[in-house]
């Protein structure tokens, strides 16, 4: 079991599963649970098939150095995207993900379509497809992380398979946890610290992406694998500095807008009272 790989997959999957769970919950409550669960199960099966076939094919056919360069680069792109969005949310430049708002919005759309009663147990194609699409789209990012992270964390063909297995187990644990908590509370999981999870995963993906891309190009990192911790500390420090800087920029911009708005009023007041 590779714990770093499993943890990264767990955290990334938890975020995505919470998002998918919200839609499945709406479909379950508004259309019916049969269609919602069938859609979610069909999407989970599609994703498992994708990980199994793509993972196995890549393990068998692609040389390790090429794999590390390509997958390291993909992880860098993916990690920077997550990190950028998390930093922007912390700095207030982007709205935080609101599961309750998404829940109400989707519910209103379904009600407008006429699907109101969840007590009917007959299969509803629209509900099935909505559930399938949301789980598949959110799960694709998880599948991507499971495959790339699982493959790159290892050094030989045998342990490459074990890397994928560790990542898949991490993702499975996150999925089960979200389903369990969701089944117990039956409301959108709004209290999950999604942005913090995305931030941590962004740092992890960027760190491993840099490390493996470097290794693919023959970089001999000082202290070998321990350098991963140093890299993570560098990116963490940079991310915190960027959040502080962006918050200041936003405050300055807001102050400038207020100043611009109040400026004509002051002039008018002076004209009235010379």
């Amino acid at each position, binding site marked *: 079991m590779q714990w770093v790989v499993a943890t990264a997959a767990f955290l990334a999957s938890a975020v995505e599963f919470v998002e998918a769970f919200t839609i499945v919950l709406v479909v379950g409550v508004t259309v019916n649970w049969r269609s919602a669960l069938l859609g979610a199960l069909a999407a989970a099966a599609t994703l498992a098939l994708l990980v199994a076939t793509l993972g196995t094919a890549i393990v068998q056919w692609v040389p390790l150095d090429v794999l590390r*360069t390509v997958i390291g680069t993909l992880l860098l*792109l993916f990690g*920077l995207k997550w990190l950028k969005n998390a930093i922007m949310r912390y700095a207030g430049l982007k709205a935080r993900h609101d599961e309750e708002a998404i829940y109400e919005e989707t519910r209103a759309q379904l009600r407008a379509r006429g699907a109101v009663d969840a007590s009917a147990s007959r299969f509803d194609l629209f509900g099935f497809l909505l559930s399938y699409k949301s789980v598949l789209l959110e799960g694709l990012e998880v599948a991507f992380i499971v495959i790339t992270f699982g493959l790159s964390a290892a050094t030989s063909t045998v342990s490459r398979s074990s890397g994928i297995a560790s990542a898949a187990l991490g993702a499975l644990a996150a999925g089960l946890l979200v389903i369990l908590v969701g089944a117990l509370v039956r409301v959108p999981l709004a209290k999950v610290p999604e942005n913090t999870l995305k931030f941590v995963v962004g740092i992890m993906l960027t760190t491993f992406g840099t490390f493996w891309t470097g290794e693919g190009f023959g970089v001999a990192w000082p202290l070998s694998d321990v350098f991963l911790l140093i890299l993570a500390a560098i990116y963490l420090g940079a991310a915190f500095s960027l959040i502080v800087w962006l918050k200041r920029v936003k405050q300055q911009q807001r102050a400038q807008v207020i100043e611009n708005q109040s400026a004509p009023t002051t002039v008018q007041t002076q004209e009235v009272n010379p």
Partner: protein
Amino acid sequence: MKIIKAIYNFIVGDMIILIGVALAVAVLALVNNVSALAPLRGFSGPFLIIAVLSSLVATLSREAFSPNR
């Protein structure tokens, strides 16, 4: 075209990050394969880290100072 855009949005969705990382990888490939640039190979690691951080700073600056915000 729609498929390419969907893949782009799925993987990165940000042109500055894409160009920054692609440039860094291209430079590393050159340094690694051209023998005249062999003395620079020792700087590949620090260069990659700086390129990644620069891409992040550049894309966040664009977001912060965008006139559309």
